[in-house]
């Protein structure tokens, strides 16, 4: 089980000086993949950080499985835009830390690490240090480190934002395969509209600051009826009329936002 609920969530920073989020309501069901898109500075990352337990809501409730979030924990694994690997640890040690923190026996950890390495095609890099890997590879390690925890929810904060365009496409395709084969609850933050439509079951569109949820689009129904997943390549999906239609709808919705600059 892994549901996420935002109930009337407000967030202000700096003793009320900056109102970041206003009246956020969003229910994410178990094993649902929800992407939040919005203009820069709209507070979408703050939403994720509240689920992760890095920030507290100023008012309202942020719930995971019906329980209020109080602190960060391995049940809510985070993948950061800047990877946030431990550069002094090898790939294997990076993945192992969370398992050691769970006090798992060595054999179980070995097995879990091997599985995570296989999942992200990292077998031949297990003993490399992060600086020896490309950006895409580093982000694979970060995803493996998150997946290996077997988290209730997976929180991805613009995970492909720091990658070059080609690597990004590969990672997006891989994440789709991963999510369809092994579905789990994902909250995915991005400012790339195509990415959101391609990956998510639903896309929540936010307004500029103070961020509110303007509209939630159901992508999954369209994906299933138009059979998107029969196309293994992202560019083929992006060419489909149903995809273009949804994308254009989101673009227009975002463009209405004043202060819209670099979505």
């Amino acid at each position, binding site marked *: 089980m892994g549901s996420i609920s935002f109930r009337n969530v407000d967030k202000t920073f700096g003793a009320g000086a900056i109102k970041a989020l206003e009246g956020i309501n969003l229910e994410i069901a178990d094993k649902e993949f929800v992407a939040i898109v919005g203009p820069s500075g709209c507070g979408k990352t703050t939403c994720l950080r509240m689920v*992760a337990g890095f920030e507290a809501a100023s008012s309202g409730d942020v719930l995971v499985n019906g329980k209020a979030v109080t602190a960060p*924990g391995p049940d809510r694994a985070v993948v950061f835009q800047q*990877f946030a690997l431990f550069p*002094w640890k090898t790939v294997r040690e990076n993945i192992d830390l969370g398992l050691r923190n769970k006090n798992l026996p060595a054999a179980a950890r070995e097995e879990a690490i091997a599985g995570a390495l296989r999942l992200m095609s990292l077998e031949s890099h297990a003993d490399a*240090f992060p600086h020896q890997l490309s950006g895409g590879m580093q982000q694979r390690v970060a995803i493996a480190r998150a997946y290996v925890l077997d988290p209730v929810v997976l929180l991805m904060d613009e995970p492909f934002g720091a990658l070059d365009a080609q690597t990004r496409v590969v990672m997006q395709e891989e994440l789709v395969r991963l999510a369809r084969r092994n579905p789990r609850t994902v909250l995915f933050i991005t400012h790339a509209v195509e990415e959101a439509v391609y990956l998510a079951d639903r896309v929540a569109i936010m307004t500029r600051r103070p961020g509110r949820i303007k509209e939630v689009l159901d992508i999954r129904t369209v994906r299933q009826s138009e059979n998107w997943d029969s196309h293994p390549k992202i560019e083929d999906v992006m060419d489909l009329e149903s995809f273009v239609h949804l994308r254009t709808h989101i673009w227009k919705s975002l463009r209405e936002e004043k202060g819209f600059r670099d979505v």
Partner: protein
Amino acid sequence: MTLAGKRKAVIGLTTLGGVIALWFLTTAVTGLVSGARFPSPAEFWTSLSQISGRGYAGATLLSHALHSLKLVAMGFAVAVLTGVPLGLWMGWSRRVEAFVNPVFLIIRPIPPLAWIPLAILWLGLGDAAKIMVIWFSAFVPSVINAFTGVRNIDRPVLEAARMLGTPRWRMVREVIAPAASPMIFTGLRLSLQASWTTLVAAELVGALVGVGFVLNMAQQDIYPGMILVGMLTVGVLGWATTVILAWIERRALAWNVAARD
């Protein structure tokens, strides 16, 4: 060795040779600088042989050097073992910083050498006083750099560790300390430098053995050759310990040095 490294070594040796040649020229060959002010290479050699064999100021050069080295090693070790943990702690906890910082701000501007009279008053002319003064001087850079190292850790790295459920002690040992270690080593280098500076000063003021004591005696004996021997001994010892520290740093920070390249 790389080509650039070889070039650098050749240039370095050439400079060194040039300085020695100049020394030879100005003292022994032309007599431009009189032996009463600065020793000729021959006089230096005589002094070096004397202190190495018969001894000077109560002991041989080796004993003096080893004694000084021992004091630096002890003072430096005590400073690092107390300073780095305190710096890490201050960096980690705003409350500890709030408590310690005011004291630190007052003590920090006092030059370490100003502690020497008090140290001698408390602990006499023996080793304990010198270790204390070295401790004070080497402590400050260790604390400040460890502190800065912690404060400069990328926030996502800390958040990742917290997200992974890392318990407190493991957090310090496996995340905070390694993340701050490049800065910690910067602090150690400065601490080591400070240790040598302070040691020589402390031995100049009050000691019965050690390189600083050799310098002090040679000055009283108006013995330029022996003064130069003392100075160069400090130089060589300081250089050697710095090389050892750099070697340890390279090994400990392999993940970081390679990242910089």
